[in-house]
């Protein structure tokens, strides 16, 4: 204390700044050291493989499988364009584009459906007594206990021509012919909604449960109608959960493989199936790699959009 007061103020300030700088330097070094394991995992498990995928997308497909080490951009062109077999002119690759479009459309529909079914469910659970809330949450997570394949086949059992639903409809005489549901967009959308519903319910539930209902009373007291309470108070406060749920549903839907494979059959391919096809029967690894990267870009765009929506809304209310 006495020593410090003997130093002139500028000197002591300099000294303090020096100490600060050194400690910060040490801090930075420690931070790098501490995050080394995580960085290693990110490199070997994510960045490394990604680089290989990028590399492969610029190579020539091998005759049977694998790749030949000659550089080409032909694969990338063929992601969205198609070379005419005879005159080599370029046209849209309708087969690919329709699959992209179906993936995005079905993922969007699934996200909206899970929101429509998920929000009331989450609201219902959040307004139960704390004890029964846990029971309801437990029930919501039960489907995760069984394998996705098993669950998907269970849905198939429900909706196929001789399945439970059609049998029932025919039995009560609503239809004579079975309603064709398998191998349609409906089947895929229905299956994905069922599979991903909990991923919507849980984050929405978490944000409704955090919602202080006193705030709703506060708004109601300040002359807000019920509709205004919902729009100005409940929706903005629950939005983070809704956005988290949408991300959790939309993104895996884009790359879904099992559900469209089983319920959509060969006609209703989605992105995941198209990619798998290139590595299997298609024997075109570079195209598979290029398609994977395309999917990644679409996911990135979607993510950026979701983040924008959430932060933009925040600012508007400010």
């Amino acid at each position, binding site marked *: 204390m006495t020593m410090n007061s003997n130093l002139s103020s500028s000197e002591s300030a300099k000294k303090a700044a020096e100490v600060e700088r050194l400690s910060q330097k040490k801090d930075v070094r420690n931070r790098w050291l501490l995050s080394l394991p995580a960085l290693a995992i990110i490199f070997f498990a994510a960045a490394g493989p990604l680089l290989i995928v990028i590399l492969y997308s610029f190579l020539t497909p091998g005759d049977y499988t694998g790749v030949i080490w000659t550089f080409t951009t032909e694969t990338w062109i063929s992601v969205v364009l198609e070379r005419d077999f005879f005159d080599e002119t370029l046209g849209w690759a309708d087969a690919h584009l329709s699959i992209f479009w179906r993936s995005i459309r079905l993922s969007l529909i699934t996200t909206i459906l899970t929101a429509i079914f998920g929000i009331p469910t989450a609201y219902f659970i959040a307004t139960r007594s704390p004890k029964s809330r846990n029971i309801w949450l437990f029930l919501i997570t039960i489907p995760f206990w069984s394998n996705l394949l098993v669950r998907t086949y269970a849905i198939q059992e429900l909706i196929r021509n001789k399945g439970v639903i059609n049998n029932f409809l025919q039995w009560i005489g609503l239809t004579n012919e079975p309603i064709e549901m398998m191998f349609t967009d409906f089947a895929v959308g229905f299956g994905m909604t069922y599979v991903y519903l909990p991923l919507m319910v849980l984050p929405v539930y978490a944000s409704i449960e955090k919602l202080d209902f006193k705030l709703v*009373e506060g*708004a109601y*007291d*300040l002359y807000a109608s019920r509709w205004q309470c919902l729009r*100005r108070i409940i929706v*903005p406060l629950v939005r983070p959960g809704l956005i988290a749920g949408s991300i959790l549903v939309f993104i895996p839907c884009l790359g879904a493989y099992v559900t469209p494979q089983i319920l959509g059959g060969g006609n209703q391919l989605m992105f995941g199936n198209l990619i798998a096809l290139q590595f299997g029967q298609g024997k075109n690894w570079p195209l598979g790699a290029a398609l994977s990267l395309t999917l990644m870009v679409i996911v990135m765009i979607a993510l950026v959009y979701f983040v924008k929506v959430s932060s933009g809304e925040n600012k508007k*209310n400010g």
Partner: protein
Amino acid sequence: MTTNDEAIEIKNALKVYKGDTDVYALNDVSLMIKKNEFFTLLGPSGCGKTTLLRLIAGFEHPTSGTILLNKEDISLLPPNKRPVNTVFQNYALFPHMTVGGNIAFGLEMLGWSKSEVASAVDEMLELVKMQDLKNRRPAEISGGQQQRVALARALAPKPQVLLLDEPLSALDLKLRKQMQIELKRLQSETGITFVFVTHDQEEALTMSDRIAVMNEGKILQYGNPRDIYHHPENKFVANFIGDSNFLLADIQNGNAVLTDGTELKLSKENKQVSNGQKSILIRPEHVQMSKAKGSKKAFEGKISNIVYFGTDTHFHLELKTGDDFTIRKQNTPNEGTDFEIGAVVELTIDENAIQILND
């Protein structure tokens, strides 16, 4: 007093919460709150204060009975249709809006124009001295500041009645004292009727124009602080507000005769009280002590304990009747230790200091 004075009148309000055992949160409450008054509901936890406030605000509807605002029945109106605003116990500020946005909310809902809202918000911010924090979020300001914002938000639409449910209970003592003064200032500046809930008797006494003391869903007594303190009608009110000595006495022709035969004179008003066994109340600060002279008829006690409080000293006595009795004596700088434990002292009581209770 003209009858145009009344802001709120509650007639025989009953509120029953159905359950395994029905809870009578309000049991036949009748009450009149005047315009421009600072009215306090005081009572222990669970006595129904919040329920009564929620009934006035419109969050609950009475099981039976009516609530009149300016002589109009508002019992069945929803909260957004009543010119009554609430300051909630934990403020209930909207976390996703700024301080300014919170204050503007009610005005926007009332359909005020943008410019009207903006100038009203600035005016309210000035009233609660928060101009600098207009663009902060509730999470970014202190508890006392949140309290001010909650007040400003509720006052902005210029309600006829402002309800405050223990608004100061979350604040520390110093801030609490400061806000008590602030609240009084706001009430007199705005001229709005305040209905204030607390379970702190001191707060009630210092702030209120009138106090209603509640217990178990009933209003036991209401009146101005002086009346409530000096003339409590029953033991509960006397006990809840201030310190009390209760003695059993036989009322005989203007005298209160204690169980050991000591006679205490009663004041004129008390002379009307019919004869018979009653409880009497004597406040500890209304009794004088002197060295016992040894007369037979004197009202005497033996000092059993002395507790020093700085401003005053509490003497705990044992009376000849066997009852415990407390005397509070203000300390003066010249005073030594005149009275010591074990000493027998004579007590003198002003006849106006004896209050006969109804139960």
